[in-house]
């Protein structure tokens, strides 16, 4: 009975991790409204990059008429990387990095035959269906979901974690999704469980998202999916951190989560999987948070992939004091640097910044060794030491101090009282290490080719030499026998000839 009690109490406790920070969430203003459907924009800008390092190539031509759900770009070798037309219209322009699609407003679907639902619910057919829908991780990393599931099925994973912990400020698309479509997410999670062969499934939500938790509790019923509450800290939603806090397992930096028997999928991905399996609908839209204080009414949208950000801002009413646009959350995101930024499959949040909430940084000061960064680091590294070595560019020491385990969450830079941009130092050092590794691999390759070249030259030279000696031997063999007597006779004959010639001349 006591053991039972202990188990119950420990189940009540929220899964947590060491370190982390608690930035102000900035989510309430956005969560006031429901997820809004979006009116069709005039045109869509569909990005061809953003699939890790892969790049898609278009399969349509400029001026083509395309229908909704039609495939318009795919990867040259990996069949699961696809881009479908989110609505019907004309391909107006194909650039190096994007396709511009002018919408005709009809939203005509491609004929039903080409949309394939999963016929039977076997793992292989489910994965096939997910691959045809072109689903990639909608949390932000953009790893192909079908490829991840195949890896997981091969590694025979135990646990599937549905990541709904949105720890970053401003982002609330998964929370809103769970609040309204918890049933679909749970069904999607069940499909994912079946496809990956996992025996248990956890939906991990931060404990302060009460509405979402209530909605999930209501829909769980007798589903095998379990709810797991996380302490609301940043970065609880990082893949490695969420694995550590929910299951206690640590993933070494060289391995994938599948190697320790875990696969993590985003809640948005689970819903996309549900739509792909039940309706045969490819991934053409996603929930996007449009937030930031310059907006009059920040909202979540069901946005089509490729929607220009300006269209979304118009719908929310952008004030004049907006400075920059951040894609992703306020801590891990990046500034939109494109001329015309648009929604990609991995875009979960768009933040408009102003000078009040995002002030100019204070000048950087010297490290005072306060140790706040080490206390905040969620993976237990020593940020000051890493900073020291990364200034010295000592790559061996950086490796020894576990730089490759850094998840670049930025908690250390957030707490730093001296305003040192620690994460940027680590990013640069990581890139240096990767660059050096690549260069060394290439020089090894060149060396191998040069050795092969030398070997071949030597072989050719040897063969030539052998041929020459053999030819010489053959010449010798062909020549008549040499003897002193015959030579004397030849010399005598020659002398006689000369004498005879002279005689003739004299005569």
């Amino acid at each position, binding site marked *: 009975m006591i053991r039972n009690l202990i188990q119950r109490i420990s189940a009540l406790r929220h899964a947590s991790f060491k370190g*982390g*920070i608690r930035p102000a969430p*900035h989510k309430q203003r956005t969560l006031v409204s429901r997820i809004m459907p979006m009116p069709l924009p005039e045109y869509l800008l569909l990005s061809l990059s953003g699939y890790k*390092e892969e790049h898609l190539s278009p399969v349509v031509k400029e001026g083509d008429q395309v229908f909704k759900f039609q495939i318009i770009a795919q990867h040259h070798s990996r069949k699961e990387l696809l881009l479908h037309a989110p609505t019907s219209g004309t391909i107006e322009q194909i650039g190096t990095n994007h396709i511009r699609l002018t919408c005709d407003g009809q939203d005509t679907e491609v004929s039903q035959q080409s949309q394939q639902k999963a016929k039977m619910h076997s793992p292989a057919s489910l994965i096939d269906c997910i691959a045809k829908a072109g689903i990639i991780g909608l949390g932000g990393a953009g790893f192909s979901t079908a490829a991840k599931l195949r890896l997981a099925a091969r590694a025979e994973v135990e646990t599937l974690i549905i990541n709904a912990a949105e720890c970053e*400020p401003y982002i609330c698309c998964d929370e809103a999704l769970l609040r309204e479509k918890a049933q679909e997410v749970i069904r999607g999670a069940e499909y994912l469980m079946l496809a990956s062969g996992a025996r248990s499934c956890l939906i991990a939500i931060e404990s302060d998202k009460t509405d979402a938790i209530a909605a999930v509790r209501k829909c769980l019923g007798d589903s095998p999916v379990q709810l797991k509450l996380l302490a609301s800290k940043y970065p609880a939603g990082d893949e490695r951190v969420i694995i550590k806090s929910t299951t206690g397992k640590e993933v070494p930096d060289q391995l994938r989560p599948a190697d320790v028997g875990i696969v993590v999928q985003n809640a948005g991905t689970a819903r996309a999987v549900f739509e792909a399996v039940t309706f045969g609908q490819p991934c053409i839209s996603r929930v996007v948070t449009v937030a930031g204080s310059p907006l009059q009414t920040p909202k979540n949208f069901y946005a089509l992939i490729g929607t220009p950000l300006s269209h979304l801002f118009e719908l929310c009413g952008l004030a004049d004091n907006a400075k920059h646009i951040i894609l992703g959350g306020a801590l891990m995101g990046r500034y939109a640097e494109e001329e015309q930024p648009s929604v990609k499959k991995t875009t979960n949040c768009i933040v408009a910044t102003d000078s009040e909430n995002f*002030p100019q940084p204070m000048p950087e000061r010297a490290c005072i060794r306060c140790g*706040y960064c080490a206390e905040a680091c969620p993976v237990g590294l020593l940020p000051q030491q890493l900073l020291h070595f990364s200034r010295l560019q000592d790559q061996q020491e950086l490796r020894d101090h576990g730089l490759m385990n850094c998840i670049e969450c930025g908690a250390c830079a*957030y707490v730093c009282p001296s305003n040192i941009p620690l994460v940027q130092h680590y990013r640069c050092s990581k*890139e240096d290490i990767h660059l050096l590794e690549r260069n060394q691999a290439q020089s090894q390759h060149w060396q191998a080719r040069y050795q092969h070249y030398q070997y071949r030259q030597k072989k050719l030279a040897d063969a030539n030499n052998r041929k020459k000696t053999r030819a010489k031997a053959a010449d010798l063999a062909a020549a008549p026998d040499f003897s002193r007597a015959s030579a004397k006779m030849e010399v005598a004959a020659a002398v006689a000839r000369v004498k005879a010639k002279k005689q003739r001349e004299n005569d």
Partner: protein
Amino acid sequence: MLPLTDQPLATGLVWALALGCLFWTTRRFWRWLNLERQQQRSLVDLVNRELPQTQCGQCGFAGCRPYARAIAQGEAINKCPPGGEQTIARLSELLQELAEPLDPGHGQSQPPLVAVIREAECIGCTKCIQACPVDAILGGLKFMHTVIAAECTGCDLCVEPCPVDCIDLVPLRQTPRQWRTPAPVAQAGLSATATTSEQRAW
């Protein structure tokens, strides 16, 4: 004969001792020799690993490994233009030598290059194919040649033999993989969203 012939035991012992000594000395000597050679070889390998392996011969040696062997025997470390300052720094750290600036007599350090054949002008003489140390040129006699850009080290060795001067060395094309994070500066915003220090976690 030895003076101890009348004592066979002692004679035997002395012989055994002498032979043993000889054997031991030879063995020690042999091991010492091997060790020396091995150290020398591993040093050559270590130095060779730091060289860029373009096999361009700008250092005056026939390839990277001969130069590495020469460095191990005391040659100057600042003769490799493709490696540039970085290679010199790494070599000076490895060999505990002073890092000197690049010797200008062997050429200037350049950004990575790649050879490109102007294919309309190529007459198909195969001379560049024979000169290429990494077999990065493809073609046949009286057929057009072309450079496999991914294998080309940009070593310049194919330019000189070409009778019609149709080979150019151009800077390597930049791809998104070569994009670098800008050097660390205290940047606005991203890490300063809600900057009140009382919100710290612990």
